[in-house]
């Protein structure tokens, strides 16, 4: 099966400092991937590079059979990648419903699997809060909204940075449940989070980044079986 996303020798730079040192990875259609590593190891830079947000980026990024390295973020989004950024990027001056509506777009193949109605079914809380301004939401509600907003673009791949950071355990559980639902829809995801135990339950594969290189790429269970590796790269 050909990969949905294929990354080869990816390097990323911020000015003179190199953040990514030759990343190779592939994600299959509908595959759930956990991306982990300590702070500053390049996880966010990798996601931003895939989204076209890092200006100085070298190597190959193929998505759905098309080279998208160097493409503008809006073109990458239209090719079918959505990003849920760290800090979430909610539009505070727009209401919940406006945040969702402004992003609504059929997928690349014209499908409209995700609509306001379906989002409100998945997150009844957002339905209750639909008239509220984005800046009035709690952290958990904001995260629900950013994930929903990404879904409204009907993507094939969602990149989620720090899925549950700063959220109360019960709210985090909600997010994990949602990511399970998204996985069941055939949408591929790359999820960054510190809670590897929860990630392991919903992902098919784990990728560990250290100093801008991939140091582990395999089944989450295999990583679980190597406590010293987990300790070194997660500090759990």
């Amino acid at each position: 099966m050909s990969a949905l996303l294929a990354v080869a020798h990816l390097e990323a730079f911020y000015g003179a400092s190199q953040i990514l040192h030759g990343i190779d990875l592939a994600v299959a259609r509908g595959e759930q991937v956990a991306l982990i590593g300590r702070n500053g190891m390049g996880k966010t830079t990798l996601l931003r590079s895939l989204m076209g947000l890092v200006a100085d980026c070298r190597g190959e990024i193929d998505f759905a059979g098309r080279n998208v390295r160097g493409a503008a973020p809006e073109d990458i989004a239209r090719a079918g990648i959505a990003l849920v950024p760290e800090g979430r990027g909610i539009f505070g001056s727009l209401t919940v419903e406006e945040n969702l509506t402004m992003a609504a777009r059929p997928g690349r193949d014209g499908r409209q699997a995700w609509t306001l109605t379906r989002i409100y079914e998945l997150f009844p809380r957002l339905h209750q809060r639909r008239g509220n301004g984005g800046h009035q939401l709690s952290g958990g509600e904001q995260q629900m909204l950013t994930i929903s907003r990404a879904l409204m673009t009907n993507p094939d791949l969602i990149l989620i940075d720090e899925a549950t950071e700063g959220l109360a355990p019960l709210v985090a559980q909600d997010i994990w449940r949602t990511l399970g639902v998204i996985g069941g829809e055939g949408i591929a995801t790359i999820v960054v989070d510190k809670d590897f135990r929860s990630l392991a339950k919903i992902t098919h594969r784990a990728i560990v980044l250290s100093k801008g290189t991939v140091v582990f790429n395999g089944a989450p269970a295999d990583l679980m079986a190597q406590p010293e590796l987990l300790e070194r790269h997660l500090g759990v």
Partner: protein
Amino acid sequence: MDLVTFGVQLLNAIQYGMVLFLVASGLTLVFGILGVINLAHGAFYMFGAYLAYWIAAYTGSFWIAMVAGVAIAFVVGLVLENVFIRRLYGRDHLVQVLLSFGLILVIDEAREILFGKDVHSVAPPAWLSGSIQLTDNLSYPVYRLAICGFCLIVAALIFFVITRTKIGMIVRAGAENREMTRVLGIKFDVVNRYVFAVGIALAALGGIVIAPISTVFPGMGDGMLILSFVVVVLGGIGSVAGAAVGALLIGLTDTFGKVFFPSVSSILIYVLMAAVLLWRPNGILGRREV
């Protein structure tokens, strides 16, 4: 002052404020969403007035002049954004000021070549050219009333688009976080182009509707530019509702200032601006710095 005179002055103030709003709302959109200081905004107001004069003279119809003038300004806006303005995004304000000042010189020269430098007047549409008799020796021009109504409709249309349509949501989202809108697949360079064109069209429309009650002359854009900046700063940069409030305040202050305090009327609006900025440094409806 008796009640009728007061009413007439009030209407004058509102009508003046409304036209100011048309022009300033274009300026605040371009400033707030594109982040570009466009000193040539007043020049487009002047150019709009000359276009109205020229087209009305050829076709004999003020309405054709209005529609064609706005359409020409819109297309000129699209072209200018594509060729010049888009190079200014994210650049410092000095570069923006230099380029837009250059545009003023070019537009002035183009006006000189196309229309000359004579002062003109434009006739309002025949059915709006009368006056309403208020008392035995006081009447009010119908056209001024029509301006009030027309500007109200345009203002309502602008507010509807911004607050109720998907395009308006995208424009508001982009003013808040440009990168995030692009990540969601919005082609913001296209949005920018149309916002700039609408801004220019609004400036020209201001010049067109004012043409029948003012004279059309080469320097008419200069004063309008300064007043528009006062309105934008007063209302809050990027806020169309703020521009509406600011424009009406300026209209009232200027009109009644001339009636009650004629000796200091010319500085009153600047006193008003200073006072408002002391009270709210980001303008009446401006977003507060976080």
